[in-house]
């Protein structure tokens, strides 16, 4: 008679992935948790107030101003293309960076929720990623205002920015998932992260453009996923050119690989989190 009842069976998990369709379904029914959780986190940081939002815009502006000054002092030239490139790439970089730093804390911070509720844990880094995305959007608006003031030409090729943001977003999500999982096992990752991301910033074509780089230094391209993404982003959104197909393909490959590896690690280990956080 009770055969129709929803039966939940809990058994020792074998190493490996949980049943994926089941996992996906329970993730899907809870999807509004991700947006609500992000909203409440933003609320906690006062990003839903007027001053909070002004700060979200002023902060990246100040940052790009400082870096621009640095370039002018070091390189001695100030070209508005360069400023536009710097601003656009810096904003995109901070999207990836915030996604990483928010993701690293996400699982450990959700300790109480993890101990008392059964839900797909992957929603925690996903929320951190969504927060980073929400913080990224106003900076994009700022960039377009700057761009308009500079009188740079607009055109259809700028639409290539959309796939580039999608690729970078997938990459950032993969990173957030991967790091949130690693942070459960190594709690000090968060303290290494600032040094890591600072180095990454300097090694990516953000403060400089790819075309100014000595061919010898272009080997970075092979190991740095952001290299092709930043190049494609700058071409599309600053120069109004079509990005190299190669950059797009490379970026997609990096993004998919990171997302797959991150999700795999997370899913195979997440059932362990409740006894570890």
């Amino acid at each position, binding site marked *: 008679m009770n055969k129709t009842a929803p039966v939940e*069976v809990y*058994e020792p998990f074998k190493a490996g992935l949980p049943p994926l369709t089941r996992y996906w379904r329970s993730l899907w029914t809870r999807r*509004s948790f991700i947006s609500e959780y992000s909203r409440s986190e933003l609320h906690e940081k006062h990003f839903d107030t007027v001053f909070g939002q002004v700060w979200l815009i002023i902060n990246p502006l100040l940052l790009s101003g400082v870096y621009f000054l640095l370039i002018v002092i070091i390189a001695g030239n100030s070209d508005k293309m360069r400023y536009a490139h710097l601003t656009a790439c810096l904003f995109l970089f901070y999207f990836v960076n915030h996604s990483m730093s928010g993701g690293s804390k996400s699982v450990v911070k959700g300790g109480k929720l993890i101990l008392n509720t*059964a*839900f797909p844990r992957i929603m925690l880094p996903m929320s951190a990623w969504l927060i980073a995305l929400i913080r990224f959007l106003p900076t994009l608006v700022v960039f377009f205002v700057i761009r308009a003031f500079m009188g740079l030409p607009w055109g259809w090729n700028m639409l290539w920015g959309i796939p580039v943001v999608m690729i970078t977003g997938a990459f950032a999500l993969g990173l957030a998932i991967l790091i949130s999982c690693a942070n459960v096992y*190594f709690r000090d990752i968060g303290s290494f992260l600032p040094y890591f991301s600072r180095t990454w910033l300097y090694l990516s074509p953000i403060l400089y453009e790819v075309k100014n780089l000595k061919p010898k230094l272009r080997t970075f391209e092979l190991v740095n996923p952001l290299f092709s993404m930043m190049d494609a982003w700058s071409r599309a959104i600053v120069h109004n050119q079509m990005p190299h197909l190669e950059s797009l393909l490379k970026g997609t490959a990096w993004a998919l690989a990171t997302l797959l590896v991150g999700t795999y690690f997370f899913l195979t280990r997440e059932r362990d989190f409740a*006894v570890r956080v």
Partner: protein
Amino acid sequence: MSNFQPVSGEIAVSVQHLGLTYTTTIDKRPTLKARLRTMGRGTKHTRVVRALDDVNLDVPYGSVLGIVGANGAGKSTMMRVMSGILPPSQGRVEVYGKVSTLLALGVGFNPSLSGRENVLLGGLAAGMTRKEIADHFEEIADFAELGDAIEAPMRTYSSGMFSRLGFSVAVTVRPDILIIDEALSTGDAHFKEKSLNKIKELRGDARALIMVSHGLGTIREVCNEVAWLHKGKLIQRGEPNAVVDAYEKFLHVGKSAAINEDI
């Protein structure tokens, strides 16, 4: 899940040969630095705690099962396995119905948010829809009798207010199986009585209730079956008075007033 009707006497939860081992790191915080430092020295990083050992237990619908046992006996651990939070290390747990754990709705997990927001977030995490939560919210707030405090950040709550909200959420969402782990202990006399009445009411609905408590008086009063866990093993299970008597004898405390009073 809504078309499922619990039938009195049918199995709600079946625990078979359940074993659970916690593996914890010895360092307070596992860090990369610590791992690098101890690398090559062959130091063990983990401590193993056997929290549950070959436990067999069936809980039918329409019954209230009390669980007693000393601190660290594995009661909370067993509740976590039943609600799917911890995967078992051995054995198997079958659950026929929707489970709600007291505090499972994540109430109070983010102390800087208000009670209302915590209820919403916890409910969403537990798989409820916004509408379901909104529909129940008035009822939850009424039952908890928190007044305006429901809009205040939860860090301003007293521990009794915390458990009031937790209990209200757990009983209001009408789970088929309700698991209550000690959270009534901080309520005042008025709320204790109210929650006991609620528990009796739910018992009438042919739901299954599992109650962990150190308040042996309450256990005797509301449960129709009691299980006694000790160091991860099921020592005895059966008629409440018999099991509780045996447990009290074991504790060498007799029927002192102190135990009977608390929930």
